[in-house]
Every structure is written in C-alpha cells, then in structure tokens.
C-alpha cells in the first residue's frame, strides 16, 4: 500500500536516483524477509510431508528436510486403511467420517445461530443489550476443561451422552459465542438506514435477514465457517470426553495411533496420520484464506 503510494508521491517530489535505488533495495529486503520467514513457517509442514513419504531406514539416516530418496506411500496407506487403533485395525478412515458427521452440523448450526444473534444484537436496541452481548462474548474465553464434567452431566440428562448429536450440541454451545461476535461486529457496520428502509418497505424480521442481510454477509459467513470448521475438526478434549468408541473423531484416533506405536516409533506413520488429520483444515485455510482476510477486514475484528 505505502510503496505504491511512494511511486506517486515520489513523482511529485523529485524522483532522484537515490530514491530509486533505495526502493529497489527495499523490494529486495521485503521479498528476502518474506521468503526466509515463509521457509521457517513451512519447514515443519515440509518436514512432516517428506517424513511421511520416507521409509523408516531413511528417516533414521537422513535429514529431516531432505526430499525422500525413495518415495513410498506405504505409511499413508497403512494409517488410512489398516493401522491398528486399539483392537480395531481399520486405520483412520472411519474416524475421518465421524469427524465430518460432527463438524458439518456443528458448523452449520453454530453459524446459523450466530448470524441470527448477531443480527439481533446489531439492530435491536433494548435494555441491557450491550451487557447481554458482553456476556455472550465472555463465553469465548471460558477455559473448556472446566466444563467437561458438568457438561457430561447435562448430556446425560438430555440422553445425548456418547452420541454424535451430543458432541454436536457441545460444539454448537461454545461455538455460538464466537459466531455471534463475528456476525454482530459485521452487521453493525451496515448502515442503519438500510434496516429503516426495509421496515418502511414492510419487511419483517425474517425478510430483512434472508433477503437483505444474508446475501451481503458472505465474507463473515466464510470467516465463521472457517473458524468453526477448524475449531471443531481440531477438537480433542470434547471428542475424547463425550464420544463413545465408535463415534470418536479423527483427532482422538490420531492420538491413539500416535501413542500406539510399538518399540521403535514409526515416525513416517505418525507424520502421515498427522497429515491426514490436518488435511481438511489446511485445505480450507489455503482455499478460503482470501475470504478469511476479507471477512476480518469487513468487521470480524473491529479495527
């Protein structure tokens, strides 16, 4: 932004040679820093990927960042389809499906509620509205460990213990706080006159929400979906506490798998398993990162 401005303002000033050189040096500096930092940030992922594609012999003898000499997908195949987790030897694939069964409804429901709550908080003034919003916001910050036991009791009362719907419920409850914050902060940036105009046009609550608001909310919808999807997908604590054996999410299976290795640790398998478990969220971030930033700019973060 500012360098582009340079070009214009420098033209107004005096485009001396010194300035041009320093600009070129500046460009090198910028790219240099970025490339070095990017390499550092990527190293763990690359090392993980390469390791997962090596044989154990090569891992022991080689460099963590060297490209595999003999590419092998054995580790990937093994952890996906046939690795033993407890007494069942079906790999991660079943748990992968469980995670989707949990993540998709949990994300959609919490985003839906968040959008509605955000709409209400942004557009209805009532006594104590700020306090109520503050209360919901503070829910974002609760350390989740403390809710495990009381939550388990609640799920028991609801007859949802050990079920996927139960797990979805838990994720929705603690996700709503975040999605409400995102949407509300986005909606307050929409000019109030639009809502007034809608009222005069005779649009009710749902018409305003569905026809006017939702179509312009996609940046924040994306932010919320990314946030919730990764949060729920990566959850371990709730998964391990509230899921019965066959409905455990992939993170729990990954933990079991990684801690299951016998004798010599099969690092290639650990890494392959970790890659598989991380793939959906990485894909989401990479594919939708642009929207994430756009959504943040559009008001997820007040700035």
């Amino acid at each position: 932004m500012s360098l582009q401005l340079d070009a214009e303002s420098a033209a107004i000033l005096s485009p001396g040679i010194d300035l041009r050189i320093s600009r070129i040096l500046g460009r090198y500096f910028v790219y240099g820093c970025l490339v070095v930092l990017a390499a550092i940030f990527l190293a763990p992922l690359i090392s993980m990927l390469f390791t997962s594609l090596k044989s154990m012999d090569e891992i022991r003898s080689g460099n963590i960042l060297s490209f595999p000499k003999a590419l092998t997908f054995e580790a990937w195949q093994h952890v996906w389809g046939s690795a033993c987790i407890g007494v069942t030897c079906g790999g991660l694939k079943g748990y992968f499906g469980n995670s989707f069964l949990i993540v998709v409804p949990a994300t959609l429901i919490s985003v839906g509620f968040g959008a509605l709550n955000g709409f209400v908080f942004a557009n209805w003034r009532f006594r104590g509205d700020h306090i109520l919003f503050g209360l919901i916001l503070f829910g974002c910050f609760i350390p989740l460990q403390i809710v495990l036991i009381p939550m388990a009791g609640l799920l028991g009362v609801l007859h949802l213990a050990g079920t996927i719907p139960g797990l979805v419920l838990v994720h929705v409850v603690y996700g709503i706080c975040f999605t409400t914050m995102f949407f509300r902060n986005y909606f307050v940036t929409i000019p109030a006159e639009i809502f007034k105009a809608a009222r005069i046009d005779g649009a009710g609550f749902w018409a305003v929400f569905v026809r006017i608001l939702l179509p312009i909310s996609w940046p924040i919808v994306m932010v919320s979906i990314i946030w919730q999807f990764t949060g729920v997908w990566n959850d371990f604590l709730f998964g391990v506490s509230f899921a019965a054996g066959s409905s455990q999410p992939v993170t729990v299976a990954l933990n079991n798998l990684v801690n299951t290795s016998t004798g010599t640790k099969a690092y290639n398998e650990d890494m392959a398993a970790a890659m598989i478990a991380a793939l959906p969220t990485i894909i989401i971030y990479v594919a939708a990162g642009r929207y994430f930033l756009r959504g943040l700019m559009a008001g997820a973060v007040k700035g």
Partner: protein
Amino acid sequence: MRLSFKMMAFTAALSASVSGHALADESVEVLHWWTSGGEAAAVGVLKDDLQKKGVTWQDMPVAGGGGEAAMTTLKARVAAGNPPTAAQLLGMAVNEWSEQGLLGDLTEVAQAEGWDKVIPDQIKQFAVHDGKWQAVPVNIHRPNWLWINAKIFKDNGLEPPKTWDEFNAVADKLKAKGITPLAHGGQPWQDDTIFDDVVLGLGGPEFYKKAIIELDETALGSDTMIKVFDQMRKIRGYVDPNFSGRDWNLATGMVLKGDAAMQLMGDWAKGEIVKAGLKPGVDILCVTAPGTEGSFLFNTDFLAMFPVGADKLDAQTKLASSVMSPAFQEAFNLVKGSIPARSDVSGDKFDACAQKSMADLKAAEKAGTLMGSLAHGHAEPASIQRAIFDVVTQHFNSDMSSKDAVTALISSINAAK
C-alpha cells in the same frame, strides 16, 4: 452428591433396562488404554474370546499418559450417566471408584466360579469391597525388573548387578566405554518406577511399607530416604541426555537395539521384546531390580465393572467370567508379558522371566513382601501418588539436594492428604 451420582448411574441403568427389556444386548463396551502393540494384541485375545460366546466387543481405547486421558473420559462418561460396561483401572483407582459407590457387583458369578480361592489376598483387597466383587484382575505385573542387553554385558564382561552399589559400578564402567548405561523415559511414572525400586532396594521391604504405603513421617524423613535420593541423582547421570518425555517402549527399544545397556521397567517391556523377535531371558536378561530380590512389587490391571441395565448384565457377566477363566488368563498374559492373577494357572507355557515372576510371587506372598507399586497406583490414592511423583520428578530433573527433596516430599504428601 455422591448419592446423586449413584442415582445417575442407576437411572441410566434403569432406563436401559426398561428399553431393552425384551432383547438382551449382547455387547460390552470396554474403556482401556491398552493401545501399545503387545497390549493391544492381548486385548485382542479377550475380544476373540468373547466373540466366541456371542458377545460383541465395542472398543473404547483412549491412549496417552498411562491412562490419564482415559480417566478423564471415564469421569465424563460416568458424570453423563453413561458409563462403559467395564473400564481398565489400576488398584487404587478401583478403590476410589468403589468408594464413590459407582461400581457394579459381580459377587454372584464370583461365588459360582470360586474366585476367592484363586486370587492372592493383596490383590483381592482391590477387587472386593464390602464383600462385593466389583472388579476382575486381569494380570499381575511386576514393575521391579531390570532388563539387560545380554550382548553388551557379555562383550564388556559384566555381571547383572544385585545391589545398587553393584549397579553403580556396572553403570560407571559402561559409561566409561561410551555406552548409555540406562534407557529411561522422562515421564513422572517412569521416574517413580525407578524411585520405587531404589526405596525398596536400599531400604528393604519394611522400609518400603513404612515410607510408601503407610507414609510414616519418620521413615520418610530418615537418612535412608536421603540415600534414596542420592542414588536417584546418580541414576540421573546414567541416562542419555535425550530422555525427556520419552515413552517407555521407546526406551525399551534402545535396550533391544543395543543403544543402551539396561532399563528399569515392569514386565510389560517383554511384549516389546517378543515383538522385536528377541527372547526374554536370553537376548534380554531379566533380573529383579537391584536389592529387591525377595520382594514383589505388583501392579494389576483390573476391569472394573460399572452398573449396567438388566439387558447388558448377561454380557457383563460373560466378560467378567471370561477374564477370570484360566484359559484366558494364560493366553492374555502370555501376550502381555505379565503373569496370571489366578494362582492356579500353570506356568508351563510362559518364558523364563515369567516363571521366575510366578515363583517370586508365591514366595513373596508367603513372606509378606508382596506389596503394591506406588508408581502404578497400588500404594496410594492418586492425589498422594502424584504428590510424590512431583517431588521425585522435580528432583530427578533439577539439581535439588537430597535433603531438600526429603523435606519437599514430606510437605508435598502432607499438602495432598
């Protein structure tokens, strides 16, 4: 509240029994952390056994931290009124769960099958509460073993150490030759496994009983205890620099590969030895930990039974009965590396180490030196056990003096009481 948890469990049981009245649910869900190779294979034995009896096995493995994660899961499940059919618990944990009134009752089948006669008293005291059988012992582990890479000892002309002094001498020699004397993983329970061995080895069984089981303050504050910590400090010098956070099976792997000469570890290490294609007692020697000959620290995995609905009672009984059958006890423990909890199982099929273990158990039982292991939850409730771990681990990982460690030990125990 205690009452209300009981209520919850029973309400769940009741509702299950109402709904499943007509059709018995022939399945068991078992929460366990037997996920490591040898262990998982051993559980497989039980699963197959039950399947033959028409009972399906719902696996609920939660790995990590010697069952710590599994305990969280169990608490959540029980708080939800949705306990598993059975859960793997260590001795003191069975006590604690029983005290909460949260365990079921197996007395009927126990009497029918005469379990009383075949289980050693010291183990029975964890399984039976108020005259009710509430858990079934799966095995007996002995944590006070020293595993030795036979080739390294032979190449260097060393003899297995019988006392801690001998151990130090051996270790010094190995170290001088650039061989890591002791394979170890820096996790609190592993640190404490060594600590148990040192307390027992330097102080003898009476001291162990006084200090560890009775928490006698004079014993805890005695010079012997200072010597114990001195020895711990020496041992710290015998492990490789990379030990921190290492899992036990990786440490065992070091001994198997010859990267280290010895490991102080329970007999579950045998599972790893066998899996690696080596022979316990031949390639890897098993001797009792220095100075602990004649005593037997034990560690038993129990399957604690939770109250289930009438529809699942049959399957639960079958599970318990299966676990207690001599055939299973033999098969399971052959794979797992431990010895059967039943005293009437023949040792013929077991390896030399296990046979020694079985003999030592009988002798220790008679001599009154069969004692619960602290490291493995058979000596103190979790809060005190962990309070001791804190000090042992803290001392092991710092330059704390032995005197300070003793003081810290006493205050830590008192704080947890």
